[in-house]
């Protein structure tokens, strides 16, 4: 009999959303376990740099309705407007609460939380950039992660660190918990809970150039997807415009917030052409496309003309400030003080000193707008009727509320974590008071145990690494910033062929039980392949261009037909089917337009910056 733990609430993943949910479920009286494949402080929330958006109005007038408007517009009108409203309104209180938990925000001279400009954030419905991003140097995510982990320790939350969740236990359409493998021993453990919340982050490792950590392999999304939970809006994956050339490491938008500008290989500032009003601070999808267009029209820099520059040298920044009649001026010391980590990344990895020279950058796969569909209470939902899946919750990047729509605004990921993580935790605390445990099916670990043994003992010839790099290359090529039908069909075919090899011809070296990362990486690759397939399929189905999804064969946004979310469902119960599983895609789930119903400014219109 496999070891079984019982808790009111199981939180899978220990980044910002998971820790916030754990903290609130715990404060609400629930008995909580946090199960995470990493030590909590290793979570990817810690790499978020620039800030967390909240209309505090500490430096100039601001309003949560303006924040909601920017979020809806930034999301190219695919965001559910009720969710965007919750996000913007509760951001204020959530940020104040983080400060009360001790988060060391930077301060204004009066001692208030300091705020900076960020892409797509404006005052008065798109008028001009507004200082909304609350920041702690350029390591805001690190401070949030640390603060939440500290508070969980203070409140005696129970952690199962380095336990990798490998299966979701579903019984009669309800979630009864998860199966996890303890990495240290290789032992499987069942976590039986009344409520299970997934907060496992994204799957940037589908692509070859990404800002994402090696651990961002979409495990949480994949395990529920294989058990019949749909994946919503998978075609929308954000490419952040400013990744370090080749490495993909992120350079925060905060650099542009402080005055940094994008410069092409000819030395020209080019964002004026694409976003005449707010230029370099336009939304991320707009800027990423602009960079690609500069490169494809021969204006790239370097030997292969395949990158552009981000220039934050005081000389350049002050010249453009002066040209624009902006009174601000910056010094090298300001840059050092406000962007210390960015400077270090560039010095370490590029040998470039950003206070003296511009940084070579290219767009990098960054953030999944799609994921497990949820309502604003973080409850997972099954279909266009918002049918709740009992016991199953999701929050953070793995969830699709959808407050980000077709393109997330900078800083809103951190807002999403704290706002919907908190809502998830509070709702779970209430739910476990009235709900019973869903009974465990007999031997819930059996199927995943067989699958892990299949991988461990595979007698094939293909090493996981070959499949992973082939997938990443194909996805970058054909399911990247620009897409068209032929390439998407090709990508689907390639991904399916790779998955067939994954299930028939795999081999790994490590057959042991102690800390077997060879086995875990191979299993994670299976998750990536499943999500890559869903992504390519959803991208093929959506015959329009919206937000981060740009079809070269359907260049226009099509509001008449596509104001809907996509839901990809996988059928069949095999964990690793040897032939392509049947997938269906449902495009009947209408976008929530509740703000537009009372305020015409929220109705879809042409998106310009």
């Amino acid at each position, binding site marked *: 009999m496999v070891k079984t733990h019982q808790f009111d609430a199981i939180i899978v993943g220990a980044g910002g959303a998971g820790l916030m949910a754990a903290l609130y479920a715990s404060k609400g009286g629930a008995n909580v376990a946090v199960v995470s494949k990493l030590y909590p402080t290793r979570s990817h929330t*810690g790499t978020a740099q620039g800030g967390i958006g909240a209309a505090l109005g500490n430096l100039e007038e601001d309003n949560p309705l303006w924040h909601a408007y920017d979020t809806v517009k930034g999301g190219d009108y695919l965001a559910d407007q009720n969710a965007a409203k919750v996000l913007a309104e509760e951001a204020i209180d959530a940020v104040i609460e983080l400060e009360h938990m001790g988060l060391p925000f930077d301060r204004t001279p009066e001692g208030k939380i300091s705020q900076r400009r960020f892409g797509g954030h404006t005052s008065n419905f798109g008028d001009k950039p507004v200082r909304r991003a609350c920041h702690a140097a350029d390591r805001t995510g690190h401070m949030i992660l640390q603060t939440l982990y500290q508070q969980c320790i203070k409140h005696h939350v129970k952690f199962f660190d380095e336990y990798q969740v490998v299966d979701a236990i579903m019984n009669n359409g309800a979630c009864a918990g998860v199966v996890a493998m303890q990495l240290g021993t290789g032992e499987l453990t069942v976590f039986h809970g009344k409520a299970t919340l997934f907060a496992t982050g994204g799957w940037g490792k589908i692509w070859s150039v990404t800002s994402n950590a090696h651990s961002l392999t979409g495990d949480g999304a994949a395990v529920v997807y294989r058990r019949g939970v749909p994946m919503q809006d998978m075609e929308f994956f954000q490419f952040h415009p400013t990744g370090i050339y080749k490495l993909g490491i992120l350079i925060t938008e905060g650099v542009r917030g402080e005055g940094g500008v994008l410069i092409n290989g000819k030395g020209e500032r080019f964002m004026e052409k694409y976003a005449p009003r707010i230029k370099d601070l336009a939304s991320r999808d707009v800027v990423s496309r602009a960079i690609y267009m500069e490169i494809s029209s021969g204006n790239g820099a370097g030997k292969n003309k395949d990158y552009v520059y981000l220039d934050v040298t005081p000389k350049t920044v002050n010249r453009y400030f002066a040209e624009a009649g902006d009174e601000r001026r910056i010094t090298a010391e300001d840059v050092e003080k406000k962007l210390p980590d960015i400077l270090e990344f560039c010095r370490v990895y590029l040998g470039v000193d950003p206070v003296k020279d511009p940084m070579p950058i290219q767009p990098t796969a960054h953030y999944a707008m799609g994921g497990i569909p949820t309502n604003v209470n973080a409850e997972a939902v099954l279909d266009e009727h918002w049918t709740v899946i009992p016991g199953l919750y999701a929050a953070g990047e793995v969830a699709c509320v959808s407050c980000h729509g077709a393109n997330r605004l900078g800083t809103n990921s951190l807002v999403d974590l704290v706002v919907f993580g908190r809502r998830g935790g509070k709702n779970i605390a209430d739910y476990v008071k009235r709900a019973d445990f869903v009974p465990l099916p007999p031997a819930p670990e059996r199927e995943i145990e067989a699958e892990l043994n299949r991988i461990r003992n595979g007698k094939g010839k293909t090493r996981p690494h070959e499949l992973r790099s082939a997938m990443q290359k194909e996805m970058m090529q054909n399911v990247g910033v620009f897409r068209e039908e032929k390439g998407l069909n090709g990508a689907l075919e390639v991904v399916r062929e790779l998955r067939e090899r994954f299930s028939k011809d795999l081999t790994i070296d490590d057959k042991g039980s102690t800390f077997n990362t060879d086995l875990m990486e191979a299993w994670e690759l299976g998750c990536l392949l499943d999500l890559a397939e869903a992504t390519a399929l959803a991208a093929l189905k959506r015959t329009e261009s919206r937000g981060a999804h740009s079809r070269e064969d359907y260049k226009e946004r099509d509001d008449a037909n596509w104001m809907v979310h996509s839901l990809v469902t996988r059928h069949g119960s095999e964990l690793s089917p040897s032939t392509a599983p049947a997938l269906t895609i449902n495009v009947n789930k209408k976008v929530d337009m509740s703000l537009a119903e009372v305020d015409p400014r929220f109705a879809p219109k042409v998106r310009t910056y």
Partner: protein
Amino acid sequence: MDVTFRIRRYNPDIPGKNKPYWQEFRLADVDPNDRVLELLHRIKWEQDGTLTLRRSCAHGVCGSDAMRINGVNKLACKVLMRDINGSKVQVEPILGLPVIKDLVVDMEPFFGHYREVMPFFVNDEPVPANGRERLQSPDDRAQYDDTTKCILCAACTTSCPSFWANGKYVGPAAIVQAHRFIFDTRDRAAKERLNVLAEPNGVWRCRTIFNCTPACPRGIEVTRAIGEVKLAIQRGTTTGIVDISTIHIKEPT
């Protein structure tokens, strides 16, 4: 360029490999800009999948991949081949914590020490009546800025001979974490933390050997932070100890 890795191996599952031993791997076509972490991945992915290490973000923020590289504690993702003299790289697990397998050590004793110093914000006074943030001046915020950068990678603690000699010593990282709260003017539990650190396994086991400061991948002045905590214990106060005029922005190493 061609590079030779010499790696300290240990695998409790395999007879013959269940005692520590050295193994060499050769890599061709290495670029001076390749990170040691990437090269360890190449070994794992192309040559020997049993090679085991922790890693996640790969750019020096998550703190997973602290290891001894050519005898010095580093994050593998922050050492580039061009930083290494020659073409030989020796990699071992960090010292002073039990080895689980290859480069993976048991982090529990380390996190145990972390938890001993009350590493969380304490202030039970009512929050401001207007429902807004507690105020803090930029100067007060600057006092503990350096120690907020800690990512708990354990590079400092496992470079400390006092910790090697006595694993009960809380170690530099736990003191850095305590410093972050002790000198935060909003916090109210400095006294309790100073009491914990005044115990025999607290700050006084620090002999100012100064290994910890150069080991820190975040450029934290660890030895200075420990010194400030020692002063606060001696003087019985946290005010007037951190001189922010001497906090300088430094070139990270």
